[in-house]
């Protein structure tokens, strides 16, 4: 790790001004950033910790929307969303291990947009709104490929608004070593249709499976997607699974998510 300055602002405005400094980097729970810094693969001049900002923490449900502060930990989401949005709470409760869940934040996960992370599937699968210090971004516009998002330099995710579905579920088939998603599928059923978002599988990062959405919108049952398949082209091909295997798992995990949706 190289030397760096550390600031912990108490407000979003103070955080935004700190982020204007040269080589400033926002710090959520640090579950990706700190190991990267320890490896000397990242060298921010200033770390701007967001976890001291009270306005960016907490979970609240109103008018069919769950709003989660950007600095809210996975553990908090797992416990506080359990009643209102069990599909999301279930996802949060299986990210990493207890230590990760007590440090990692939803804002950090979405800003990093790891292609195998869980939260991007929930955000895209619910058509969430990513709220930043300067604007609101629809999930469909936010995710722009592996580790790439619509966030501008210095922009901070202050909260995430997720429409609460009638039924939802997230199924994660874990990569055996990291236990990140080898393939993860988030399925959410709304009055006006079904959304299906896939993480872990594609070289393009999190994405929607529109064919499955159409089939499930017509008939929300696992059998509705029998016969549908995903192309292996563009799927990640590595030590832990071929593209064909990942493409196959997308179908399996989608069916299981539909069957388990509540």
């Amino acid at each position, binding site marked *: *790790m190289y030397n760096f300055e550390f600031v912990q602002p108490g407000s979003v405005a103070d955080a935004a001004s700190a982020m204007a400094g040269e080589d400033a980097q926002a710090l959520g729970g640090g579950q990706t950033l700190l190991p990267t810094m320890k*490896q*000397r693969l990242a060298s921010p001049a200033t770390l701007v910790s967001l976890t001291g900002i009270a306005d960016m923490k907490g979970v609240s449900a109103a008018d069919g929307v769950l709003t989660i502060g950007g600095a809210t930990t996975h553990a908090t989401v797992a416990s506080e969303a359990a009643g209102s949005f069990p599909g999301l709470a279930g996802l949060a409760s299986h990210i990493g291990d207890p230590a990760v869940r007590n440090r990692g934040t939803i804002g950090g996960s979405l800003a990093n947009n790891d292609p195998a992370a869980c939260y991007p599937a929930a955000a895209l699968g619910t058509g969430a709104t990513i709220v930043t210090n300067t604007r609101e971004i629809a999930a469909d516009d936010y995710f722009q490929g592996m580790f790439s998002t619509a966030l501008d330099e210095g922009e901070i995710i202050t909260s995430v608004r997720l429409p609460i579905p009638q039924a939802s579920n997230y199924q994660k*088939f874990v990569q*055996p*070593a*990291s236990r*990140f998603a*080898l393939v993860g599928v988030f399925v959410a059923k709304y009055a006006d249709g079904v959304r299906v978002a896939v993480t872990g599988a594609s070289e393009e990062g999190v994405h929607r499976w529109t064919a499955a959405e159409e089939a499930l919108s017509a008939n929300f049952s696992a059998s509705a997607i029998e016969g549908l398949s995903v192309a292996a082209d563009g799927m990640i091909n590595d*030590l*832990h*699974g*071929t593209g064909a*295997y990942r493409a*196959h*798992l997308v179908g*399996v995990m989608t069916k299981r998510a539909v069957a388990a949706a509540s």
Partner: protein
Amino acid sequence: MPKDSGIGASTKRREDIRFLTGQGNYTDDINIAGQAHVYFLRSDIAHGTINSIDTSAAAAMPGVVRVFTGADFEGVGGIPCGWQVTDRHGEPMQEPAHPVIAQGKVRHVGEIVAAVVADSLSQARDAAEAIVLDITDLPAVVDMKAAVAEGATKVHDDLTSNLCYDWGFVEENKGAVDEAFANAAHVTTLELVNNRLVANPMEPRVAVGDYTRHNDESTLYTTSQNPHVIRLLMGAFVLGIPEHKLRVVAPDVGGGFGAKIFHYAEEAFCTFAAKACNRAVKWTSSRSEAFMSDAHGRDHVSKIELALDAENNFTALRTETYANMGAYLSTFAPSVPTWLHGTLMAGNYKTPLIYVNVKAVFTNTVPVDAYRGAGRPEATYQLERVVDKAARELGVDPVALRRQNFVTEFPYETPVAVAYDTGDYHATMDQLESMIDREGFAARRAASEANGKLRGLGVNCYIEACGIAPSNLVGQLGARAGLYESATVRVNATGGLVVMTGSHSHGQGHETSFPQVIAEMIGIDESMVEIVHGDTANTPMGMGTYGSRSIAVGGSAMVRAAEKIIAKTKKIAAHLMEASEADIELKDGAFSVAGTDKSVAWGDVCLAAYVPHNYPLEDIEPGLEETAFYDPANFTYPSGAYACEVEIDPETGKVTIESFAAADDFGNVINPMIVEGQVHGGLAQGIGQALLEACAYDENGQLLTGSYMDYAMPRADDLPNYQVDHSCVTPCTHNPLGVKGCGEAGAIGSPPAVINAVVDALQSGGHAVDHIDMPVSPSRVWSAMNS
């Protein structure tokens, strides 16, 4: 009723109090006043020519004490290899130079190119970034068969090829073996890979070199399984320091699994640099460094053939193995695929003719050496897989086929140079069958199938040679060391004992189990005995702990020393009670005279030895301290039968271990709880190999599994609740405790059980799969089912 102390008691591990409360003294806990830190700049390419290394900018960086390169080690010896294998043609193996810091070429990712010693680690690391390397990439040699093909790039220019040796065993039997195959009623052939592993002890390696100028003494604190071996290898062969000027200390060590047997460049560097800088020098491996600098394990590619007659008797066995040595020969690397592998090829069976061919190959990868089981898992895996395949091809019960071919009469001379002293393979198989409800398997399979899953049962046997080993035998086999063990038993004036042992505990619990033996022999409380190990300054020259040898060899040395103590105390007791020495009995911590009510306590006799006012000074010396060196007459041969039941999710290919049972014959057992813990750990590593672990390189020699993000370690929820049993006991016939050793059994016996079960499950689902390589990852299983 279970005993509550002495041999056979499950005494709780006294060392756990300090380990579990953060009071351990590990090498990283050792800090010497004024110490500097070293950061090793390691090669990020697998093969290249070093044109130049410019360290001038680095040397001028803040806090830098000195920057070292290969040039600083030109007058220093290389890292030695402790075993010389002779090939099929009677020629010695090819043995390349193994520099402490790369000289002229780099040969694997992770090889040390330069070392920066600085006041702080951070400063050393900063300075390392200022070193300018000019290295020309060379093609990397990764695949073993390609490495020995005509025209392959050579890892070592001064060797004739990448073939370290081509070993035949027993070469004289080759013709007879080939003839038996020609006459066989059935031949089963199997090609398989024994996957490359990284040991991953919880504590990474650490070395602290210290030097005192006034007496020219060097001290190395290191994470080692055998400090005396390191002192000899490093002092005599690398740095030229005589033993009386070199102390090696291996304090608490957090797991070794073989990877901490070997002498590593970092140890020699820290010792050398401490003297060169006149300042202690410390290195603590990061986990990333561990992946690319700890010796790896396994990595064999084998073809095995089994010949059977018309009655399904095994008539001959023939194998051809390519064994990866990596870029350099690690300390015991050449012995692993040969003497620890070929000699085990008979297994539990009376196969009369066996021929083993092993080609050891240099590649641009991290050196490969012993890892828990070392050679024996590779042998067992091949044998127990081919026997299972044969049973399937012949349509016979795999257990019945094994039983039919079991060795049943002991001692048994195998056709591969070793003689089993004792064993009862039917007994362990009987025990196993009583544990696994084989009759109920069909119903369990039906229940799994009703749930959309496939279920398989795999059974296998194993034998291992441990308690390594008779010095005269291993000397004939190429060892450049003896393999005895030592112990000094010191009795204090009031009767407490200290045992200074050459064995080394890095998780095995010697501080608890060794006192149980002494307590049993004298009839005193275990708490009166303390174990000292791990420091060349206060233990006799010993060979350390590996090959399940601690209790069998180290424990035997301790018994021999204690017997000398008891003989002497009986003389003293006889004198004190004015009785004949022949009439003295020692029981429950007191000496008595047979047929009388005379008695004197253990402590009073010990006191008399140190306060010899009334003492037979004309016959014996005062004091009570004895040393013994024990060199065993033979290996010991633990054996057992294992069974694994798996369920496979055909939609995802995921394999779940539903149950695992192990019936072992370890001979006599000192502490059943510790033995069961050893079996649990071995099973976790064996199941880990079968299910999860694999070290992978790409075609350029880049390590693909350089962290836990890609190297899959077994976790608690990957493993079942084991059923373990060691009630079958055929005591070893040639050591005083009748013990055999238990450290490696689990890792040796379990991989074939898992794979046999997976193949059984896949075949039950109608898949024409007769073999699947480890690890059986979901992706690999799914691909096998859908190819």
